[in-house]
């Protein structure tokens, strides 16, 4: 993260930061789930 943006983010209220944390976590979970689906689809097709 660029220092200027980092400083602006650090100045947000705790409530706003928590909302961002939740979004980051949701995004990571979605990415992980998509990766698992891809892996699962690949192993299924390889198994055929």
């Amino acid at each position, binding site marked *: 993260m660029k220092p200027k943006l980092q400083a602006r983010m650090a100045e*947000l209220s705790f*409530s706003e930061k928590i909302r961002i*944390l*939740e979004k*980051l976590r*949701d995004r990571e979970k979605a990415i992980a789930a998509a990766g698992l689906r891809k892996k699962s689809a690949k192993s299924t097709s390889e198994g055929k």
Partner: protein
Amino acid sequence: MRSFVDNGFVKRTLELINQMQADGVIGEYAIGGAVGATFYLAPAATVDLDLFVTLPSATGMLVSLSPIYEYLKSRGGTQQDEYIVVGDWPVQFLPLRNALHEEAVEQAISTNVDDVPTRVVSAEHLVAIALETGRAKDHTRILQFVEQGAVDRAKLKDIVKRHGLSTEWNQFEQRFLKGPQ
């Protein structure tokens, strides 16, 4: 599918923790770890909520988290290894293991998440605890505090000295802040 916007899980989790405190299951508590660090720094992704807790029933060396788990399970929480998932967030309850942790909870900062009151470990105590834990990710977090000017170096040095972490701090400074000699 659940909305990605403003899901409010942390807020609801804290409401439940506050109710658990009001019901006498835990004493004082303070948010530590990455969520605690977010109070002072730019938000960074994390998977769990770390809470330092005092346990009213703790006697001697035996500390049991069972009353917390039972309380939360009866309100929809589910246990996963060392976490209990409350309101979609895995929460790790960390009993106070030493004087540093006790001081961290005593001197925690009162704040709110939306309208829900809570307490967060001070920046200097978070850094001292990260130094004590000493994993690579803890060192990264300490660097973020230092680089973003989010920690009072004099206060930190006092805490580090009083809690026997001077050697760890000197090594950290030498390795990460002073660069190769």
